[in-house]
């Protein structure tokens, strides 16, 4: 991973020197282990702070809507697809961007690491990566963990690890996975209505309506979100189970045909709700009904912004 960091710094330095961009959006090392944060920079002196490892899960496309300047942005596969969607939605133009593409090997899930380590009652002070191993260090222990067991759920089933658009790559393209993305969705589809209702009621029960999932998403850029509307108030603002579920249904529906399954919503959720169980269903339907995958093709119209006269309509009387 260190090669990526080096390469990012090298590219950014050059871009700033040649004044190709006004600013750069990348990552810098977090103050706690496994939490790198987005880094906005303009000056060459800041270049050494740029950083990359497997804890850069935040989708940086989230900082692009309605920008006026020209920026370089570090983008993994999912981030690059999000950029494609944002361009289609006129939130930014391609000329405003210099995309530093990251061929991605999957981001890691800090919660899984904590689960493994904390059950043994130990705090983590440092986490490093070496040859497919994650080395977790604490006060009086050091533990080697198999990287593949600790991928974020969305990364384990990601089909587009390589950026779909970029100006420059930081390394060789990585092999893409061939995998069934919808196993869990099909399992739910095969349940009875009662069981499904039960499943989703339980899933959303711990939600505290903090909207971190919404804020982390690059596509939740509406100046006024439906959750803030008050006259009429379509969605109740309380944590009553009906209100909470309504919020989740509408949030997910607003992402139909747009969500790139970057997983930012899930990693942002303070109570660990698997909100992708909603968005992924819509993603599956959009693919099956309209043969569309979000952000894979620059210039393609979003599926709910277009139609074909022969679209399926068996459900209409």
């Amino acid at each position, binding site marked *: 991973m260190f090669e990526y960091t080096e390469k990012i710094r090298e590219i950014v330095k050059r871009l700033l020197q040649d004044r190709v961009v006004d600013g750069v959006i990348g990552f810098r090392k977090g103050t706690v282990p496994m939490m790198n944060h987005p880094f906005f920079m303009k000056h060459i002196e800041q270049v050494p702070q740029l950083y990359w490892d497997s804890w850069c899960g935040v989708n940086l496309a989230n900082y692009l809507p309605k920008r006026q300047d020209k920026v370089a942005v570090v983008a993994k596969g999912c981030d690059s697809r999000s950029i494609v969607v944002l361009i289609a939605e006129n939130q930014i133009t391609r000329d405003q961007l210099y995309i530093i593409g990251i061929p991605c090997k999957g981001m890691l899930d800090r919660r899984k690491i904590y689960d493994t380590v904390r059950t043994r009652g130990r705090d983590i002070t440092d986490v490093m990566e070496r040859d497919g191993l994650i080395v977790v260090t604490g006060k009086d222990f050091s533990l080697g963990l198999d990287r593949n067991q600790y991928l974020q759920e969305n990364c384990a089933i990601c089909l587009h690890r390589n950026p779909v658009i970029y100006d420059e790559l930081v390394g060789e393209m990585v092999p893409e996975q061939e995998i069934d993305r919808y196993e869990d969705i099909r399992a*739910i*589809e095969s349940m009875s*209505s*009662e*069981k*499904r*209702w*039960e*499943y*989703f009621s339980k899933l959303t029960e711990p939600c505290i309506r903090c909207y971190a999932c919404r804020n982390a998403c690059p596509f939740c850029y509406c100046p006024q979100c*439906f959750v803030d509307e008050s006259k*009429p108030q*379509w*969605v*109740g603002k309380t944590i*009553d189970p*009906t*209100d909470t*579920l*309504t919020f989740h*249904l*509408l949030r*997910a*529906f607003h992402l*139909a045909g747009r969500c790139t399954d970057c997983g930012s919503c899930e990693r942002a959720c303070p109570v660990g709700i698997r909100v992708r169980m*909603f968005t992924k*269903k*819509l993603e599956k*339907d*959009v693919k099956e*009904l*309209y043969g569309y995958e979000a952000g894979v093709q620059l210039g393609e119209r979003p*599926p*709910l*912004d277009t*139609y074909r*006269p022969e*679209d*399926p*309509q068996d*459900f*209409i*009387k």
Partner: protein
Amino acid sequence: MAQWEPKIIALLCNWCSYGAADLAGVSRLKQPPNIRIIRVPCSGRVNPKFILASLRKGADGVWVSGCHPGDCHYIEGNYYARRKFALLKDFLEYVGIEPERVHFSWISSAEATKFAKVAEEVVDAVRKVGPARYLVKREVEVE
């Protein structure tokens, strides 16, 4: 308690299905009294929020009806609506709302008999699954 009767919200396009409802009435066609009609300018105007709001407020069923493909007063509103509804219907079923509660149809302003027939079908389907159970916002008693 009197026998339960389903309450159904019908969102009807002004240019076709609403006209069909009108014509069905004028023609004295027999129709179930369970439908509460809300007139909308186009099926494309129907926001998923309206459907969720109906269910949240206790409607036992929701029915959206617009112009046949190709006949939209605004040329293509119903084509966009069709995609939106296809996804929404499946999505609501996915989280547990029974398929019998949410209905869509294309009915032109001349199809009064179709209107009466579909109205029967919708009411029968909703009757079969009984009073709304899911997504109804229950009022909380405050002492």
